[in-house]
């Protein structure tokens, strides 16, 4: 339990973890098979969470600033261009108007990372040069993960070579859906190897796994195979990050920590667009895993529109007046 009450890590943007990476463990099928997830109970817990946790005033402002440092600012569109990506990177460097940050005594806040397709990695790396903000690349035939396996592995290598510090891989949903955990383990382990020094986030595409039990099992298998992060969604599934899914994955992370001592990060992605949601997720991480999981090396939001709502809430905090979207520079 000591690991849950560690001091927070200091830096706001951390491509480098302050703890040893998860080396993975041999596949433990008994453990995987024993994973349980009671859907109704998990939904009740998730439903009561907003009523149980509330942060107000200065505390809310501080929490929202923290949330900004945890955002993987993302663009994953077919019409992405270098210009669009450079604009996003500018926003990543300066996510909130400096006057507002100065008013809060918190200058220099940046987002956690910028997340793009492979083709945009070089552009993003150049645009973020000197900022310390890492570039994450979605990889392995994102979002479906159904291109030839050797190409998916090769894609990781190319993105790392292009400067991506983090690789968001997608798992083969079919392995989870058919219960072929060995195949999933082997696939993820090989991808992890291909990542080399880059941190690997394993996207489970939870909206396509059918049951929370499958989410629990897939989470365990990905961690056993060496994932640095487990991530809910590509953002392209019908259902993306939800609180029930998050509870299941967070509990899996905790069980993995308890049994192996290895820390794995969590990234909910897709569907988190309100400041209030971000506070809720932070409270969930704080209560379920502790402060280390409220830092960018162990927690990220995969989000594109969340930042805009947070900016408005921060301006409201500073001025006492409700804000408008157009007052904040777009990304």
């Amino acid at each position, binding site marked *: 339990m000591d690991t849950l009450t560690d001091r*927070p890590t200091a830096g706001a943007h951390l491509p480098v973890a302050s703890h040893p990476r998860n080396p993975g463990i041999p596949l433990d099928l008994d453990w995987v098979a024993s994973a349980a997830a009671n859907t109704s109970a998990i939904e009740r817990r998730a439903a009561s969470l907003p*009523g149980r946790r*509330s942060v*107000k005033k200065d505390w809310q402002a501080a929490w929202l600033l923290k949330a900004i440092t945890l955002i993987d600012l993302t663009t994953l569109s077919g019409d992405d261009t270098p210009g669009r990506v450079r604009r996003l990177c500018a926003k990543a460097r300066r996510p909130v108007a400096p006057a507002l940050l100065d008013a809060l005594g918190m200058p220099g806040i940046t987002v956690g990372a910028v997340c793009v397709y492979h083709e945009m990695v070089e552009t993003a790396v150049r645009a973020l040069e000197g900022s310390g903000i890492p570039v994450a690349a979605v990889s392995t035939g994102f979002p479906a993960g159904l291109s030839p396996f050797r190409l998916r592995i090769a894609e990781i290598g190319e993105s790392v070579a292009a400067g991506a510090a983090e690789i968001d891989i997608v798992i083969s949903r079919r392995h989870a859906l058919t219960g072929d955990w060995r195949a999933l383990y082997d696939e993820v382990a090989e991808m992890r190897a291909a990542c080399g020094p880059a941190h690997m986030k394993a996207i489970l595409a939870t909206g396509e796994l059918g049951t929370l039990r499958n989410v629990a099992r897939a989470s365990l298998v990905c961690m056993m195979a060496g994932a640095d992060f487990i991530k809910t969604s590509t953002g392209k599934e019908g259902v993306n990050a939800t609180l029930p899914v998050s509870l299941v994955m967070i509990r899996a992370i905790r069980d993995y920590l308890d049994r192996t001592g290895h820390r794995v990060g969590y990234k909910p992605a897709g569907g988190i667009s309100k400041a209030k949601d971000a506070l809720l997720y932070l409270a969930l991480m704080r209560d379920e895993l502790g402060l280390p999981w409220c830092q960018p090396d162990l927690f990220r939001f995969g989000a594109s529109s969340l930042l805009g709502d947070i900016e408005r809430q921060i301006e409201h905090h500073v001025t006492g007046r409700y804000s408008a979207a157009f007052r904040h520079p777009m990304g």
Partner: protein
Amino acid sequence: MTIRDIFDTLDYGPAPESADQAMAWLDRHGRRFGHWIEGRFTPADGAAFETRNPATGQVLAACRQGDHADVDAAVRAAARAQKAWGATAGHDRARVLYALGRLVQKHSRLFAVLETLDTGKPIRESRDIDVPLVARHFGYYAGIAELIEAEMPGTAPVGVCAAVIPWNFPLLMLAWKVAPALAAGCTVVLKPAEYTPLTALLFAEISREAGLPKGVLNIVTGDGATGAALVAHPGPAKVAFTGSTEVGRAIRAATAGTGKGLTLELGGKSPYIVFDDADLDSAVEGLVDAIWFNQGQVCCAGSRLLVQEGVADRFHAKVRRRMSVLRVGDPLDKCIDVGAIVDRVQRDRIAAMVGACTGDVWRSPAPLPAGGCFYPPTLITGLAPADPLMQEEIFGPVLVSCTFRTPDEAVQLANNTRYGLAATVWTENVNLALDIAPKLRAGVVWVNAANLFDAAAGFGGLRESGFGREGGWEGIVPWRRPAAAAARAARAVAPVPAPADPIVEGIDRTAKLHIGGRQVRPDGGHSRAVWSPRGHLLGHAGIGNRKDIRNAVEAAQAAQKGWARATAWNRAQVLYYLAENLSARAAEFAARLRGMTGRPGEGEVQAAIRTLFRAAAWADKWEGRVKPVPIRGVALAMPEPQGVIGIVTPDDQPLLGLIALAAPAVALGNAVVAVPSRAFPLAATDFYQVIDTSDVPGGVVNIVTGDAADLGAALAGHMDVEAVWAFGPPALCAMVEGQSVSNLKRTWVSDRAIDWAAHDLRETLARASEIKTVWVPYGE
């Protein structure tokens, strides 16, 4: 603390709900309240007590200490209002109840804040759980009021009712009493707990806006003495109590023999069973809802953790981790999990109980606020059933734990308690869950959940957790009575005295007791001659004693579980077989009845045969319900047999009286110990020969002849008898009710002349069974 500090620590900071409106309401009343009688507050001056905010010690207001005169005034007001309210059309009562529910919603925040101020419970709970359930309860019973005339023909309101409620859910318990009472057409005098009278007074004030006629709801504040005065007042026809088993027992004793209806919802030590295949993290979260809800001051709190040995260490570690992040503090803070204990007295009581315990005590390290009545969430492991804390209700945020090995052992441990309110089962195995749920002696079972409530689902206990159900259709029953005028008092029937010139013919014939399927001589070795009115010696009946009752109850307990497991159709067949064999000997039984009573017996024998058929018919048709509760899942209302029922049968229909009571009981899986008519015992003793030839398993029906008062007292006082029914003179009824306090068994007594040929078997079936509500949320 700067924003940069908070950025690093992610402290929660304060998130207080405003108390301004509630304080303004208290101020408008000068912080002094009278009683609410006849639609207005009585003068606030006079003997008073202070009610405090337990989180701060701050005095909130002074309320009147009600005395006999206050109680009397309130009961009189209720009595004056009763006739018109009872005669009000169900639809019009429904309108009032609907308005009451809506008013609670419209003033929901005021109610929630006031409740939190007065009780110390977190605002999340009063806001998200208590107050919405209150509104839901009035809404639900508005519907019952609307339907009552059509759905409950032949019934009428009980009349003036007395309600005494506890401090843990002041407004919700008010709703649980007042909503069904008003729906049924009863008027009410309610005494809230002295720690927490305020929301009841606010409710009363607001009830004016619902068009509730004056005097229909009256509230008298005060302490236990006020409650005792209300219970003892001759006016109310029924008493409804929620509170401690100790006080419930005193109320049972005080109302014995008064003819008042009584429902009791009392304490518990509810088991929380975690099997090794459960979703352990969800089971931990369930515990937060079970034992750290309302600081554990919940009668149905899952306070006794039973965890399968193989996962116990892991589970306890998870529980401790979760406990360490429970936030204890200002109940008005929206980010608090555990609030204040209601009063210093209670907090000290909890501390004393935990202090005296020998287990491994682990307290949450979460900081406690300075001042105020706070107690940390506590887990005590390494206990055995023999430890007092595994048996006694702590009524605080203290979880005790012990391990089990097998499902059977889990059930044994779970049922190893004097209480029987609620139980929780965690397993991912539907076979296991649905096997265990019926085996748990509890009125409510939650599968993979805890503390789910809804107005549509019955709630109430077994054993010393009380009797009666609140919620659902079953919850309206105690507030209604048969509309027909009460029957005349039963005439006393004395045994025919020994004649001056006895006529003794034939071979000597000795009736024995029938215990455990065998004919046995009475333990005391005494018998009594039974004479016909014409002076014939009809035979001898044994005079049973306490030991015979003891033996009969043992035999009945041994037989009952197997009998309840037999299929309903199997039980029906046995009853049909009894009818068949009785029919074959109908002439003999008719002659026996004529011999004893001097009256023709054919009609009674035929009625007995018909009753056996009816009981057989009902055996596989006494169905449960599926309640439309607001979860994805089902709440099953399952009728279950009481267990062993002691029956002191009426005198005047010596065969039919026995069969009309025993057959429905047996049909539903109970075992009975019957004390036959004292005057005319031989029809019953003849009947055991029919029993012996009809495949009735030994011990299912036991017959002990003898003195009704002696045997009735032994049955009513016996701790292993779940229910006792007695039909006879008022002194017998009073004695049975009085003795039943031993284990708070269900009683059914009457000194009226009931024609058992015309009696509705459904009443007997209802009394022979108890509704268990099994909540089964589902979803994968």
